[in-house]
């Protein structure tokens, strides 16, 4: 259940950004979660609904973009098929993960005072 600690860090990050820009409310968050990040999306959403209460995210929607894992060979650059051995069939080098382990806050839509 580390999703709770991830959400707690996420809300802390949003609060810091909002304070820096003197935002009064946050409307929407967009996060990227990689397929191999070790984060269960439903648990993340549940944790978010619990933790957002009485924070600046209280009414903010959470958009989650799932990023598919992609492995390539660092030697010849070819992509490896899903579910295959993580080694290039041509040059036998260990594959490198180029996407799919993200736990990233991408964007915050926040309401800012015109006069600040």
């Amino acid at each position: 259940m580390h999703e709770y600690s991830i959400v707690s860090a996420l809300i802390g990050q949003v609060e810091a950004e909002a304070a820096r820009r003197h935002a009064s409310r946050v409307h929407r968050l967009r996060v990227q979660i990689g397929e191999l990040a070790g984060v269960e999306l439903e648990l993340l959403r549940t944790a978010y609904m619990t933790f957002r209460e009485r924070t600046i995210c209280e009414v903010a929607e959470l958009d989650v973009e799932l990023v598919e894992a992609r492995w390539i060979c660092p030697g010849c650059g070819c992509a490896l098929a899903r579910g295959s051995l993580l080694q290039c069939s041509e040059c036998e080098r260990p594959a490198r993960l180029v996407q799919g382990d993200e736990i990233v806050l991408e964007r915050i839509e926040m309401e800012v005072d015109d006069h600040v």
Partner: protein
Amino acid sequence: MCDTCGCGDPNVVPVEVHARILSDNDRTAGHNREHFEEAGVLAINLMGSPGSGKTAVLEATARAAGGRLRLRAVSGDLATERDADRLNAAGVEAVAITTGSACHLDAALVHRALHGLDVRGTDLLFIENVGNLVCPAVYDLGQTANVVALSITEGEDKPLKYPVMFRKADLVLLTKVDLSPHLNVNLAALEHNLARVMPDPRFIRVSAQTGAGVEAWLDWLEARQPVRSGAEAAQPRH
């Protein structure tokens, strides 16, 4: 207020952040890593299921190292200090991290524990994580390498079920191999499954009971020890 028509809609602006959510943890992990590098210590994040034999492997490691290496450990558990007590009894100076309900160690917990353990003059520091095949893989602690203990009693398909943990592993210790004659487990199939989730699959078959494989494990550790430059005498930084 909306600039276009003055309708009273709030002024909502998109702010691009593109930051890792666990960036605070990453910073603390970086601080721990500096600590370890200054002290010239090899720090191993030892992960695995509850009951996979993490503590038993460390006890066997201490027996085999027989005073040749200075071993220390921080040991995480939800409750009790039993693992740390076992390690101290085996000659590994250890402090416990009791996490309460947290299912993993994070860099700040390790940093606090390091205040109770002098890592100067240590050859190998083991960070024995909370028994769990999921959550610990997500948190950088500042370790030099990740090692996963996987007992052969857990079945051949564990790597495929928990790919995140095994992808992060630099080495897998296949533990309790002395039980192999009593089990219907195909070790070759288990190793093949590791190769489907680990880009550079490395594993050692070990038995804490018989000591089999422990020398190979010590060789793996010693090959990764940092070259000391005298900096290990430096005062710890905080």
